[in-house]
């Protein structure tokens, strides 16, 4: 071999090893993606089933596909002999309308005869005769249809439908909904962020812009990172001892929000500090040179420049808080809340807790309800993540 080949020649083995190494690194990522896709597919699959139902008051009425729930309620009430004014006033009042929706199951279902329909099933009297998984139900569709008895009907039931989002929990899987849990989540998360954002961002500004160096800063830094890693159940115990018992707030929304705020503050502080640290020192110097005080530098220059980063951090920590079930089980998220919360001292339940309770129910169909709940949860989380992603790209800066 000549000397230039020893120096510059291609070594095929080096190349091959490199490529194999790169592939080995990609493998776990692909595995994770495959698992996630499988999980999502499985949840989707389980959230749809074929059912043989029997309604005590007849098979209910069918309405054309695409009508709104309101319109169906209106037609249904008119058919029962209410006058137009009565219907209008009933539907115009949110509380009345809610009661009507609760009493009348308005759902998207496919029925055996004529393709897609909306049903209004009155009186909540639907009774399950049989429940089949999607594939089995479709395979035996003709057979099941032939064997229907008097008053029974065969339906394809997508458990996650419009009314699932508004219904309250129930002992019957057919009428169980996630409405109160959604509102509970909105209340708890909203209040928690209301507490956590000012405290967290204020702390970050204090540490980054005022107490820049020194022992206090270092001690707080280490402790904040540790706090961000403490298991959430520990915060639940703290919340139970301090807020629920100690302050006597009981198992209501406010102590739950305060517990979640405690959980969120360290994460918000850490991300906000990173956002503040990313603001170049030259901007601070420029502002100081123009005769700005420390407060003016912090709030007129550094804070606006760091805002996109801080908002992203807040959204990501909100996404984490929204999925917390453990601490809320301790501070008293209730199993059965048949009404929507209306004040910080209402009883409440939240989406993850509701899912947890459904999974533990006896009736096998609650697994389908839980699957529908999980889909709602995933949907909310995706919206939050995409919002964070959008904000990060929208406000990306080149210094």
């Amino acid at each position, binding site marked *: 071999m000549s000397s230039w080949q020893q120096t510059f020649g291609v070594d095929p083995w080096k190349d091959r090893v490199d490529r194999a190494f790169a592939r080995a690194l990609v493998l776990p990522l692909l595995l994770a993606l495959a698992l996630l896709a499988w999980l999502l597919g499985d949840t989707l699959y389980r959230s749809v089933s074929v059912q043989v139902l029997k309604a005590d008051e007849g098979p209910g009425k069918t309405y054309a596909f695409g009508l709104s729930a309101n319109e169906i309620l209106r037609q249904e009430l008119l058919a029962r002999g209410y006058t137009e004014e009565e219907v209008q006033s009933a539907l115009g009042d949110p509380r009345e309308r809610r009661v009507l929706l609760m009493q009348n199951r308005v759902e998207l279902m496919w029925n055996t005869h004529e393709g897609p329909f909306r049903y209004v099933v009155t009186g909540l009297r639907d009774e399950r005769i049989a429940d089949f998984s999607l594939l089995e139900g479709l395979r035996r569709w003709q057979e099941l249809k032939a064997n229907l008895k008097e008053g029974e009907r065969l339906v394809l039931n997508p458990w996650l439908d419009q009314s699932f989002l508004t219904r309250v929990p129930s002992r019957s899987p057919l009428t169980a909904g996630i409405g109160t849990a959604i509102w509970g989540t909105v209340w708890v998360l909203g209040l928690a962020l209301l507490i956590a954002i000012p405290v967290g961002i204020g702390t970050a500004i204090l540490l980054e812009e005022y107490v820049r160096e020194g022992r206090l800063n270092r001690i707080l830094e280490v402790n904040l990172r540790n706090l961000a890693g403490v298991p959430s159940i520990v915060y639940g115990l703290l919340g139970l001892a301090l807020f629920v018992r100690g302050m006597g707030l009981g198992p209501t929304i406010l102590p739950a929000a305060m517990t979640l705020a405690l959980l969120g503050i360290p994460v918000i502080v850490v991300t906000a500090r990173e956002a503040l640290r990313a603001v170049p020192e*030259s901007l601070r110097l*420029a502002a*100081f040179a*123009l*005769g*700005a005080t420390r407060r003016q530098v912090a709030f007129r220059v550094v804070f606006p*420049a760091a805002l996109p980063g801080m908002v992203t951090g807040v959204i990501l920590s909100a996404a984490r808080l929204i999925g917390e079930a453990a601490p809320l089980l301790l501070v008293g998220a209730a199993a059965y809340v048949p009404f929507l919360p209306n004040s910080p001292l209402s009883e409440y339940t939240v989406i993850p807790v509701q899912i947890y309770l459904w999974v533990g129910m006896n009736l096998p169909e609650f697994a389908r309800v839980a699957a529908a709940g999980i889909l709602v949860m995933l949907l909310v989380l995706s919206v939050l993540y995409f919002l964070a992603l959008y904000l990060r790209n929208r406000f990306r800066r080149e210094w």
Partner: protein
Amino acid sequence: MNALDFLKDHETIRTDPVPEAEALVDVRHLNLWYGKAQALFGISVRFPRNQVTAIIGPSGCGKSTLLRSLNRMNDLIPGVRVEGEVLYEGINIYDPQVDPVAVRRHIGMVFQKPNPFPKTIFENVAFGLRLMGVKGSELEDRVVEALKRAALWNEVKDRFKKESGLRLSGGQQQRLCIARAIAVEPPLLLMDEPTSALDPIATQAIEDLILELKEHYTVVIVTHNMQQASRISDRTLFMHLGVLVEEGPTELMFTKPKHPYTEAYITGRFG
């Protein structure tokens, strides 16, 4: 000459010293320490009104430190200690009763790397004015005036309210920073190597601008570029190892330097 002897005993060589009456800033026996390391050794010098004074010297000689001590920007660095006086219009700005924030409002500063705020061009220039409580149409007039003086107005007049200062080119950004500094009409303008991050054409624009600014402002400029110092400055200070070696009118400094160090630096034998 031994460096230690040089630090201890050097008397600044002054050619045509500035009379006290013409000086806007009078630095007297200024010593400065970063922690335990002394960075400035007994600097005494006067900066004349409406003239451009250049500070030259090799890296680490304390020229930027001297510049920053003129508007108390050094106070922001932890562990800085200052002895001596800096008289601005006869007032010692290091007097304990003097508020450094107020000092910085009177003395503008332009940095080495352009550092516009991530705001619109208008908001960049308006920043200092807003701190002073200027509002409404007066604010707008003064922003436009500052942009005109900084020779940026023609390039940005149709977009200065919408476009971010970060979207400008490097030279334009630096002129924006100059506009931002002069918007509050500071009698004294400090510039810390304002063209070292710019290409020759942008540098030319800034140098022309500095010569025009001389009409209204007193300018102190730190530069690494000796041609630049000779082109734009009226007086030159040569510093070495934290000591002011020699000062005098630029022409004389560059044609007949008196100290051997000055001569060596100017002719390019060290630095």
